Structures are given as C-alpha cells and as structure tokens.
C-alpha cells in the first residue's frame, strides 16, 4: 500500500499519540471538585466508580484515536498494487564526451545480478537496453544536461515504484558544473529517496591543456598559442594539435582517441581577401581586426561566425576526438593577433570537443546535495495512483462512526431506578 501524502498519515499518528498523552496527563492531574456535601457520598462506591470510569475512559480514548487515524488514512489517499519483492535499479548514464569508456564498466558493475533500466543522456535523454550500452558511443557534445537525464530517470523510476518493492536511482556521470541548470535542483527533489551518484573521472583534463603546434617558429599562430596555452613538441602529451596546413592522416589518427582536438588552421591562400574591418563572433566573445577569409569545408557544426553570418570555423567529430577547421587568418601587420580578445578566441579553439567553455568539476557539496533525499515531499513525479472514491468514502464514514461512538461513550448511562 502506498500513500500519496504520507506526511498527513504521520500527522494523524502524531495527533493520536498526542490524544493518548493528553488523556494520560488529564487522568493523572484530575482535580477534585469542591463539593460541600461530599460527606454524604457513600464510601463504598469509590472502587466501583473508578473501575467504571476507567473502562469508559479507555473506550472514549480508543474511539478518539481511531477517528483520528481513519481521517489521517483517508487524507493520505492510500492506493495499492500488487508489487514484486525485488529491487530494480534505474541507471542514468552520462554519455557526453566527458565520461569516456569507463562509464560502461561502472554501469555493468551496478547492474550486476539485478533488474536494471538504463537511461542515457547528454543534451537529451532516452532509455536504452543494457545490452545496447556497449554499442552506444559517446555523444558529440561534451556538455551533459543533468536536468534532462534526471527527468527521464525519475519518470522511469516512478513508473516502476508501483511494481517493485524498492527502486534505486543511480547516476553515472563526471558531474560537471556545466551539467547543472536552474531547474536541476527542483527536478532532483521530485525523487523522494536518495540518488546513488557514481562519479567518473572526467575524460577531459582541461586543467593541463598542452598544445602541439605544427608551425614555423616565427609564425604568428605559434605566438598566439604560446599566449593562450602550454605549447609542447611532444604530441603524445598534447591534447590539442594545431595544424598549419592541410590535415594529415597521421594527425587525424592521433586525434581519434582521448577526446583530442585537432585545429586545422591553414595559412591563407594567395588569392584570399582581407576584410577592411573583420569581426569574428564566438561563444566566448567578439574579436575585431584585420582578417583574411579562407573557404572552409561545410562539414561540422559552426563554432565561429563572421559578423555577416557566414561561418568562420566548424567542428566535426573524429571518433572520440574532433577536428576544428578555421577559415580566417589574422593580419600579420600589427599586433592584433596578440590582443586580449584574440587570446580569448584562441582559448575557445582549445576547449574539449562539443564544449563551449572549459570543463569544471562540480564540488563535493553539490554532489552530496544531489544524493540526499529532499526535505519536502515530491509533488509531481512520485504522485501515487488515485485512491478509489469508495475507499475514501468508507474511511471517512468509519471515522464519523468512531466519532459517534466516542460521543456515545462519553454520554453517561441512564440512571438506574
């Protein structure tokens, strides 16, 4: 049996307990009434009167407690369905690029030997079979939307609560700050129990971004990269590779694993034009200066635009990594390439695949808040099935009957002649 508002049931229980306590206190503190002619009351009636009064007290107390409990049960809106005694686990899996292949091992360890439902999410969420999890590669986005995953997971878990004795909700994610939005906290509160968070190590280590630049030492791109990140010659250590020229097969192979990024930044073609005043727009800001435009491949999603709306850079997936192709070249005249806004634009090119900004792990307290049950009762997702009207009517009728009995018990019996 489930209750839509268990708080009301608890409140009724507390009220019934309070009635019992008050009853006992009142019995203990029952004061004697001043009665000048008390001497004419027979002595021998004492014991029998106390016995009768005690019995009547117990009946009145029982009727009061029963009325309160029945009213509480009716208000708590009970419902029941045949349930299995098993435990089912709903695993909400972050499939964004931040999680990597380790998520599959974690999910399998959670799901071992039990009934499991799997919900995968990045920017959107969907339910898949556990067997299909191995075939599910990481999504193109590096940003997971935790709200989307929680909504889908809680919805799945809520439908299972009526059929299973226990439903566990597990979250497998690296839990980045960017995964939270304004509604995440409220959505989490719709699940009344705790959420087991299995935190993965982020596949992308953005704290030590090392860039390998394939350019001449005097190239301005080399100078720009040196200002924005740590430049290394060791491509094995680098997570970003800047290719001045056409994309080579070796570089493409290098970039297929570990979320590596390849920035294809070819030098301008001889016939390319220079904008009088060019403006580049990205998620991180706007840069104005003298640029040369170059044509770029139409594959991939735009990440940088010219002010007139044409695409200046695109990103396309490359297995677990990605390739960013640029179609602009800062003017070699002047120091516009080294300006602060240009430095910000360059950092945009180094962020993890699918991300617009750098990946930052959520704090432990944020994760703990995600794990612990909400203080208030959920209102939407865990709403119980409706109580049959006849059950409510029966409970209210029984409560009224108990009240009538209480009145009857309180009323003194007719005096014997």
């Amino acid at each position, binding site marked *: 049996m489930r209750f839509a508002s268990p708080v009301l049931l608890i409140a009724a229980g507390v009220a019934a307990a309070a009635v019992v306590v008050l009853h006992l206190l009142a019995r203990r503190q*029952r*004061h*004697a*009434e*001043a*009665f*000048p*002619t*008390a*001497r*004419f*009351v*027979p*002595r021998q*009636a*004492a014991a*029998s*009167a*106390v016995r*009768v*009064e005690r019995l*009547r007290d117990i009946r009145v107390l029982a009727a009061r407690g029963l009325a309160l409990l029945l009213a509480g049960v009716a208000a708590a809106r009970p419902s029941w369905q045949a349930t299995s005694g098993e435990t089912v686990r709903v695993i909400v899996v972050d499939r964004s690029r931040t999680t990597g292949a380790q998520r599959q091992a974690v999910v399998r360890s959670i799901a071992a030997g039990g009934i499991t439902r799997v919900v995968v999410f990045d920017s959107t969420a969907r339910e898949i079979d556990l067997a299909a999890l191995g075939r599910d590669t990481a999504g193109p986005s590096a940003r997971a939307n935790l709200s989307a995953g929680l909504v889908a997971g809680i919805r799945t878990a809520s439908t299972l609560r009526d059929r299973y004795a226990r439903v566990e909700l597990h979250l497998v994610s690296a839990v980045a700050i960017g995964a939270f939005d304004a509604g995440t906290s409220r959505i989490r509160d719709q699940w009344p129990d705790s959420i087991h968070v299995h935190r993965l190590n982020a596949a992308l280590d953005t704290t030590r971004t090392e860039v390998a630049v394939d350019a001449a030492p005097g190239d301005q791109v080399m100078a720009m990269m040196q200002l924005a990140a740590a430049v290394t010659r060791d491509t094995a250590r680098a997570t970003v590779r800047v290719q001045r020229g056409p994309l080579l097969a070796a570089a493409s192979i290098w970039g297929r694993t570990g979320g590596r990024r390849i920035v294809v930044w070819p030098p301008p073609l001889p016939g390319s034009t220079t904008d009088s005043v060019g403006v580049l727009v990205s998620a991180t800001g706007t840069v104005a200066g003298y640029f040369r435009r170059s044509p770029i491949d139409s594959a991939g999603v735009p990440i940088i635009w010219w002010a007139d709306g044409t695409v200046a850079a695109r990103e396309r997936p490359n297995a677990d990594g990605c390739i960013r192709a640029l179609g602009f070249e800062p003017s070699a005249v002047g120091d516009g390439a080294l300006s602060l806004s240009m430095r910000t634009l360059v950092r945009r090119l180094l962020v993890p695949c699918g991300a617009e900004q750098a990946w930052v792990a959520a704090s432990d307290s944020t994760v703990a808040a995600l794990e612990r049950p909400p203080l208030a009762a959920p209102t939407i997702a865990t709403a119980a099935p409706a109580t049959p009207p006849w059950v409510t009517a029966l409970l209210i009728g029984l409560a009224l009957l108990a009240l009538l009995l209480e009145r009857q018990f309180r009323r*003194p*019996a007719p*005096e*014997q002649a």
Partner: protein
Amino acid sequence: MSGLAMTPLSHLLDDVRGLRWPSRRRVSGALPGVHDSRRRGMSPELSEFRAYRQGDDPRQLDWKLLARTDRAYVRLAEERSILPTIFVLDASASMDFPSGAKSKWTLAVTVTIGLAAVAHASGDPVGLIVPTASGEILIPPRTRRGVVDELARALGVVRPEGSPALDDAMRRTGNARRIVLVSDFLGREPELTGAALALAQQGREVCAIHVVAERELDPGRDTRMVVDPEDPSLRRPLSRESVVDYRAEFDAWRAALARAWRLRGASFTEVVTSEPPARLVRRIVSA
C-alpha cells in the same frame, strides 16, 4: 458594596416593601413597636375591663364606668413592642458553592438584606454577626435609618472561607430577641443545635434558614472526585451509581436537621439557590 449587585438588591427591596414579619410569640420588650407585647398597658386600644385590685394604679381606673356602675374597674389595653433582630451568617468555605452569582453565600446575603429590610420597616432594630476567618463582623441591632445599607456594605466585603465557629457567635447576640441564623449547617452541627436550644430556653425567638445549593440536591451523573472545601481530607468519588445513595442520605439529613431544630422551638426554613429571593423572603416571614 463590592461583591453584591445593587440592582437585584434594589429589586428585592421593592418586592418586599409592605411585608410584615410578626413575632411568633408575645414579646417582652418595653419600647413600643408592632409586635404583640406580653404587657398590658395604657394604649388607646382597649382590650378588657378588670375589677380593681389593691395595688393597681388608680390612674388606670375607668371613672365613667365607676360613675355609672358604682364599681371600680381598671381599663386594660394591648401593648405592642419592638423585636430586636440580629442575623448570624455562616461565612464558611462551604457557603461559596457553587462559585459565582448563584452561590449559597450570595443567596444568604440577599435573603438577609431582604429580611432586615422587612424587620426595619416595622421599626425593629436589626443587627448582624458574621464570624469570618479573618475576624468577626458585628453590627449591634439598631433602628436608625440606613442600617440596612450598613448591613449590605458590611456583607459585601465578606469572602466565605475557612470554618468559623457559628455557635460562639450565637452566644454573643446580646439582648436581641430574635436570632436569625442563615447557614448550610455543614460543620459543628451539634454545637450549633446546642446554642439554639440555649437561646430558645431564654425565651428568644430563633429562626433558622437552611441554605441549600441546587447542585447539592442534584449533583449530576458525571463521575468525578469531590472534596469537602472545609475538610480537604474528605475526598470521595461521586458517580452516577453513588448519586442515588447520596441523595437519600442528604435528604435524610436535612429532614433530621429540620426536625431537631423545630423540636427545640426554632422556626426552620430551607431555601434553595434556584428560588427567587423575594419569594423566599415572603415564605420566611409568613412561616
């Protein structure tokens, strides 16, 4: 007059105006009043002629009758006298029941004021003795105007509490010829009866007014513990089973009490708190 509502008292005094409270026997007082006196005297109201005897006052001879009959007759007339009345009120804790405006004490005070007004209107001196836990209130019998108000003011400040001795107060009634005892007679009952007997033997008129609360007659059927306000050690459970025996015992006691006082020559009237005070006063003065 704190503690007493003026308006009900005013209504009561209006209701009892014109009533007379005659003495139950001839009084022996010398001062002229409205009560029949044991004395025969010189008043214009002729009672009888008696043959002159040696020692009679010659001024009482009826000279016209002597001239017609040549026999000496003395003219005798009815004398009327005053009856000094003192009220002895029981201000014990048991009188403060039920608490509030319907208490026995309130009724006792109201009836006392009503009777005092009736007696005072007949020219009788009226006084008051109220033994209380904090001392005794004594107003000797007086006929002056305003003495009834004085009684009311004195009673207005009394709070019934404790168990003051009424029998001692009855022995200090001085030369009052009518002693009106207003009490519930709960406590020191033998001593009180003895004092009443002593007063009756002195030829005084003793008038007992027994104040009973309606709730004492019908205590209800709710089971509860009751305690005597004058004796906290007396605690008994009153239930609907025991209330029948209680009533029987209480009725028997009241009947025995009335019989005992009447046997000692006292008038005994039982008043219940539910009765209108004016009707009670009429009932008492006509008893």
